[in-house]
């Protein structure tokens, strides 16, 4: 079989050129967050890292990420020492921007490496599909928008995640577990996926594949030592200093509201949409209206949303729901612990936490898209479940960038990616062994055709009709509900595919 072109490296180079050109683009407060962390880790002793609060953007990532910032700050000292001063709030000299943006591009090489490992690990017959899938991840509009404009290090983080997933396929589950444990010490959002890892490693590594009741003790000891070792490396010193409770408060701030500032397209967005829709009907149905909440949602911007008619949701309830819906796919993983099922279970865990989680940010949609991309080309059934997610997930990221200059970038790039990869996926995905579900296909097509008029309305027409001030929340809510529909639809679709495969 011939090489597939363009290669990952070629795409990385051209995409890198575009990303360098984006240096002066809009950057969110996350830029300042990371600059502040550079300053904290560089100028303070480790004991004070998690106590420093000069800036409101305190360090709230686990210790490995702090160490990563410390490593970068060593280089930053040569570029512009002023960015490493804790008191320099909002400092963004050209050198700082060049440096920080460059680190994002540079650390993304981990993703390139992980993807090339993924392509190598693919079976001969599906090599082309694997190559296409990894290109789609490398060029993902999600990473493009979040990392290279909005500013974060997701490319690096997801690179580690994919590396771990690929290692699990290459029969080195121990290494996979170590990498995943390290990833958790970088960014704890991946805890959402940890149940799938737990079940998979327990079933496929710790227990005998043929007999569940026969544990493999040597494996358990190896795995336990390694994972505990990693966590000890990360958190041990803080336990030693008696700071672990402080870390817990920083890493898990439960004081935030159910819905994030922008509405992530999940069940709760649909829930609040239903709540809004019920307000005019409330008097007729004889429902009591919580008048305080009326003003809260219409602001549509930052703030805790509360509900006017429907019952309030507590964080315990969301956790229960998340846990329950994560358990469902894990049952199958338990009985069929192979790599494909494992990635499917990871995806479904991502779905469950995104759809039912507490204070979910729309950026978390990558938690679903990226694992799903790895198996989306397994056959056409997988692909047809992936399609609405690809549209909804990326479109839902649009509100992250609200400045006019970035509008063409985010829309053109996303539309480019959608056209290119949905077309190529369509060609590459093999015919499934079981027939597809006809109705589902048509619905997803209908869903896709709605995307473009909706984007046009929300980004242009709405302002023309109502102006910039009036009914500001309306486009946001439309987008959010539309995207929520897509994500939920693709979730149900994938559940069906997963359990019937």
């Amino acid at each position, binding site marked *: 079989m011939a090489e597939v072109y363009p290669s990952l490296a*070629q795409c990385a180079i051209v995409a890198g050129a575009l990303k360098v050109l984006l240096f002066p683009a809009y950057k969110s407060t996350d830029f300042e967050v990371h600059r502040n962390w550079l300053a904290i880790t560089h100028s303070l002793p480790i004991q004070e890292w998690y106590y420093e609060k000069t800036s409101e953007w305190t360090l709230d990532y686990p210790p490995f990420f702090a160490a990563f910032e410390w490593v970068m700050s060593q280089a930053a000292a040569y570029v512009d020492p002023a960015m490493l001063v804790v008191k320099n709030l909002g400092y963004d000299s050209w050198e700082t921007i060049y440096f920080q943006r460059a680190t994002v591009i540079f650390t993304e090489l981990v993703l390139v490496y992980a993807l090339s490992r993924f392509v190598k690990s693919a079976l001969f017959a599906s090599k082309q599909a694997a190559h296409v899938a990894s290109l789609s991840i490398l060029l993902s509009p999600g990473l493009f928008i979040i990392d290279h404009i909005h500013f974060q290090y997701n490319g690096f983080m997801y690179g580690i995640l994919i590396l771990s997933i690929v290692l699990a396929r290459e029969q080195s589950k121990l290494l996979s577990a170590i990498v995943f444990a390290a990833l958790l010490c970088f960014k704890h959002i991946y805890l959402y996926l940890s149940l799938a890892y737990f079940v998979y490693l327990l079933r496929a590594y710790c227990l005998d594949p043929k007999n569940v009741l026969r544990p493999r003790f040597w494996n358990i000891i190896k795995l336990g030592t390694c994972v505990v070792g990693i966590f000890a490396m990360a958190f041990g010193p803080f336990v030693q200093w008696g700071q672990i409770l402080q870390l817990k408060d920083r890493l898990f701030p439960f004081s935030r509201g159910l819905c994030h500032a922008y509405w992530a397209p999940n069940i709760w967005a649909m829930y609040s949409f239903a709540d809004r829709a019920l307000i005019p009907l409330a008097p007729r149905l004889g429902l009591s209206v919580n008048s305080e909440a009326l003003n809260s949602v219409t602001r549509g911007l930052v703030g805790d949303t509360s509900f006017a008619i429907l019952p309030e949701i507590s964080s315990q309830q969301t956790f229960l729901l998340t846990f329950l819906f994560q358990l469902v796919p894990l049952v199958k993983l338990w009985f069929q612990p192979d790599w494909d099922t494992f990635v499917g279970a990871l995806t479904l865990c991502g779905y469950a936490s995104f759809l039912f989680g507490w204070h979910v940010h729309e950026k978390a949609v990558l938690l679903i898209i990226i694992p799903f991309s790895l198996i989306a080309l397994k056959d056409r059934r997988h692909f047809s479940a992936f399609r609405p997610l690809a549209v909804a997930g990326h479109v839902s990221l649009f509100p992250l960038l609200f400045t006019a200059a970035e509008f063409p970038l985010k829309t053109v790039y996303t539309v480019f990616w959608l056209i290119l990869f949905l077309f190529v996926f369509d060609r590459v995905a093999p015919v499934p062994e079981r027939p597809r579900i006809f109705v589902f296909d048509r619905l997803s097509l209908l869903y896709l055709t709605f995307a473009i008029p909706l984007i046009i309305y929300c980004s242009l027409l709405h302002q023309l009709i109502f102006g910039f001030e009036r009914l500001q929340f309306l486009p946001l809510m439309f987008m959010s509900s539309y995207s929520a529909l897509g994500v939920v639809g693709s979730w149900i679709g994938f559940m069906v595919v997963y359990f019937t495969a």
Partner: protein
Amino acid sequence: MGPPPPSHRPRKKRKTPTAPGSNNNLILDTGDGKQSPAFPLVSFLWAARAGVSQWLILPLTLMAVGLFRWAVSLWGYSGFEVPPMHGDFEAQRHWMEITTHLPIFKWYLYDLQYWGLDYPPLTAYHSWLLGKIGSAVDPAWFALDDSRGFEHPDLKIYMRATVVVSEYLIYVPAVVTFLRRYTRMHGVHAWSASIALVAILLQPATILIDHGHFQYNTVMLGLMVASLDAILAGRMLWACIFFVGALGFKQMALYYAPVMFAYLLGVCVFPRIRFLRLVNIALVTLAAFALLFAPLVFGAMSLEARKEFASVTQPPLLQSLPITLDKNSVAYAVLFQLTQTVHRIFPFARGLFEDKVANAWCAIHTFYKLHRFEASLLQRASLGATLASIIVPCGIIFRHPPRFASPSSLVLRFLGILLVHEKSVLLPLLPMTLSLAGDGGLNKENRAWVGWANVLGSWTMYPLLKREELRVPYIVMTLLWAYLMGLPPLSLETYRSRSSSEDPNSQFELNIFTKLLHIIFYALMIGWHVGEAFVPPPPGKPDLWVVLNALIGAGGFGIAYLWCMWKLVTQCCQSNRRASEEENKKKQQ
């Protein structure tokens, strides 16, 4: 009775497109039955080589190159935060301001010291339209006099967007249709045409000047390409109209005029004299010019305008006219308006060179100070030299109009202007780059030469771009293009011989002389960048690096000129030979 005449004319036989890449050696055979792309740009379109619908490839291409344009436009522009005069950005904004607020007769008269309008009328109309739309969004952007030096992020976005929209409405469709026709005429495979399209639309120099520095060159270039397209289609009258449009947008298009003139005249004279065609062409051209100036002329007829004109000093051109007119008459007003416009558009009062730029004059100047001569003498010398340099290609084009095979390639091969302004390097680069789409346009030889000229072109702009903080886009766009085309400084693949005796493409291998020449120039450019970055110029010569840049650039363009001339002559001979062979065949039959 003979057979009945066929009820329909048989369709004109098109040259059947060859197998993908066969005439452009885009695909390398690695020997073990595997194929690999010849340079990175081919890889990106590798999946399309079996033929994918243009409905897919074209939008994707346009979106991708559009992203790069918009990303470049995020960077600084000419004159940003440089009061009091700012730069080209402010000039264009100012023209939108005056055209939307002043009556038309004042356009070429209003406060000429502050960026007075000095582009032809089509630019003025274009500015008026954009100014009207922009004022609807935010009137503060173009408020008369108050908006001078206005710098707001929103205004920047609007102005940047107008460049992109203008380009996508004029330049891009023109290039796409031109390429389609051109490649079909040459029997070039659609895949190869798509590759050429990406290469053309990613030309670094054009992007950097229009979307970085800020200008609307692509509108003029687009009209020029439309004119070439009309020539290919055999619609000479449309060619005239589009060319007048290009000329009416930016006087820089005048450099193309001798070739266009020679070509159109040649069409009317060879192979037989067609007088009617000549008259038609002349009339249409005149009509187009009349249409172009009509709003200005009508604007000048009003009473108000006449009063205004009577009270201000006459343009020098009008003074030199032998006739005297009543200052209040309509004829005077019209004449005043026209002469004032022409005077503004062709400022012979300006110096020979505005800045240190890569042209022969500047090169000579370094060794032999030209200031000792009078300005008028220099102007004449410049005109003479320019004419001399284009007389040969014009002659060839005149003698060999479209008779055989590839008329357009003759026009395209044309390059020969002693540059007067650094941005005019875009003029010769456009046709040279378009030749990538021709038969064998992407073979090693043509790619190496065109790529070399393009890299050199954007390199000579570096001193300008550096002033405007466009270093990063310069580096990124130039290296990206070089990378995609497989050229130095990122790859020596093009210059590596891999010819075997049975390889049919070995004739396209570069000869040793070319290789040496190009490598030396690339080395010079890199060396210059290193020197410029790390070695401060000696105290007596603060412009050392800029002058060196100009010198190397002028040398390079001279060589590029000679190469284009050589290609023009050889192609001409080839087409002549082919034609005579065909004639012989006919005679034998």
